[in-house]
């Protein structure tokens, strides 16, 4: 008596054995969405999308969309750095962007991404914080950088970092005027070159993220949300415009050899250059 054969539709197979389903594609050198293993999704960058913010940008990498707004406020400087302003970056992953996120306080992933980006910005000294000083010891500019993810399809780190850098480039802050010991920042008329200033960015770090699949030793560039869920680990590499590394993050239980790291860095160099061209074009 012949044993009955089980046949599944592709979508059922994907639900039952996601890793095996995926392997069937990667052995042919492609991914379920049709991309090659080292291909990044189409990326667009729009500058100045929010007029109420001092600087803003919207970045789309495939289906992941992040809107970033920068607001500048006057505040007292920190005690250990009386002549420096500071940046407060924050990445918001709300339930709106994906059904994976629950309403409530920021999820672990949101906090981890915020912290990773904060580290890249601080350590690569993106901006000379002394430029943000208004009056030493009394008043400095604080830049609140809020990146809100409105659609999540994987690779939030690249999208959020690109949106934040594009928004910082777009920032225009009113020069404050001094009146009888108080600092006034006027609203009113449009910002021009005389009454406002833009930020002098020393470096523009941009990143490329890769997903690691242990069992098949495959590295995928720019994972989407399904690929992220079944991956064993991720590598994110941030580089500035001179090709210097600004940050490397590797998470997950997988291991990865030196040659893999080198390949990723080379691929990241090409990708960040491509991103820079896109950012400067639009």
């Amino acid at each position, binding site marked *: 008596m012949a044993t009955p054969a089980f046949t599944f539709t592709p979508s059922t197979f994907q639900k039952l054995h996601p890793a095996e389903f995926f392997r069937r594609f990667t052995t042919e050198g492609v991914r379920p969405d049709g991309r090659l293993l080292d291909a990044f999704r189409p990326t667009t960058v729009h500058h100045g999308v929010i007029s109420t*913010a001092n600087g803003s940008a919207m970045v789309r990498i495939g289906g992941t969309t992040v809107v970033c707004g920068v607001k500048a406020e006057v505040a007292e400087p920190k005690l250990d750095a009386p002549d420096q302003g500071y940046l407060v970056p924050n990445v918001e992953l709300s*339930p709106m962007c994906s059904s994976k996120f629950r309403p409530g306080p920021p999820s672990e992933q949101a906090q981890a991404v915020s912290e990773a980006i904060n580290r890249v910005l601080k350590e690569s000294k993106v901006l000379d914080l002394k430029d943000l000083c208004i009056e030493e010891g009394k008043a400095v500019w604080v830049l609140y950088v809020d990146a809100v993810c409105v*659609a999540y*399809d994987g690779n939030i780190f690249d999208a959020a970092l690109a949106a934040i850098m594009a928004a910082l480039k777009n920032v225009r802050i009113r020069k404050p005027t001094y009146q009888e010991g108080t600092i006034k920042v006027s609203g009113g008329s449009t910002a021009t070159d005389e009454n406002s200033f833009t930020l002098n960015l020393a470096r523009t770090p941009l990143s490329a993220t890769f997903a690691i699949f242990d069992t098949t030793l495959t590295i995928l560039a720019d994972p989407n949300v399904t690929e992220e869920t079944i991956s064993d680990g991720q590598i994110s590499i941030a580089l500035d415009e001179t090709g210097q590394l600004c940050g490397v993050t590797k998470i997950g239980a997988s291991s990865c050899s030196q040659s893999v790291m080198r390949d990723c860095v080379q691929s990241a160099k090409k990708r960040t250059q491509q991103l820079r061209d896109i950012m400067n074009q639009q």
Partner: protein
Amino acid sequence: MSRAELLSPEGLRIDGRRPAELRKITSTTCVLSQADGSAYLEHGNTKVLAAVYGPREARHRALVLHDRAILNVELNVAPFSTGERRRRSKNDKRLLEMASFVKQTFEPVVIATLYPRSQIDIYLQVIQHDGGTLQACINATTMALIDAGIAMTDYVCACTAGWVEREAAIDLNYMEESSDTSEVTIAMLPKSSKITLTQMESRLHVDKLEEVFRLAGEGCKQMYEVMDKTIRDRAEDLARKMAV
């Protein structure tokens, strides 16, 4: 500090509009990749994004209704959306109140009995705030619900109206709202002209009420034209693509 004249002697408002003129409206549906339905709406400088997830399994078993879907609305105002950055907590009373207004507006309109034991989540994100947030939220929600294919008895179109100095005006912007003008938000079903929401917080003389309401109703009808056109264009576009 001189107070800006809200209505010029020729009858033009601060931004150059006539009293019965709406701001420039831009609307698009299906803007988000993950949501079941989504819409992006601009009323002049007020920009709102709406995402609808559902009908899907209810999160809290205890709240499930055996014969209809439950509606859940969450409103999130981005910190960079207003003139001064305000980090509003999720439990801010004003936001919760607005979210509950949206929920109550749509509860009679969505045919929830078609989706028993499920939940419909509506997430609203205010990206830029220049007056008329509640009306923009309601309009964006209508379009997102239609985009998600959720059955409704009619569109819900909302419009703000108020008394600006000497005349009734619709679609007030932030400057008009924050000065001493009364403002009422009305949400209406355009086919039957039934009103599902009226909200007003300021003082308005009862003699002026009828004029303001009438003008708001006309504003809602204008909104309906714009929203309907967007939806129909998108449907035609989809039909054409499917036919290939």
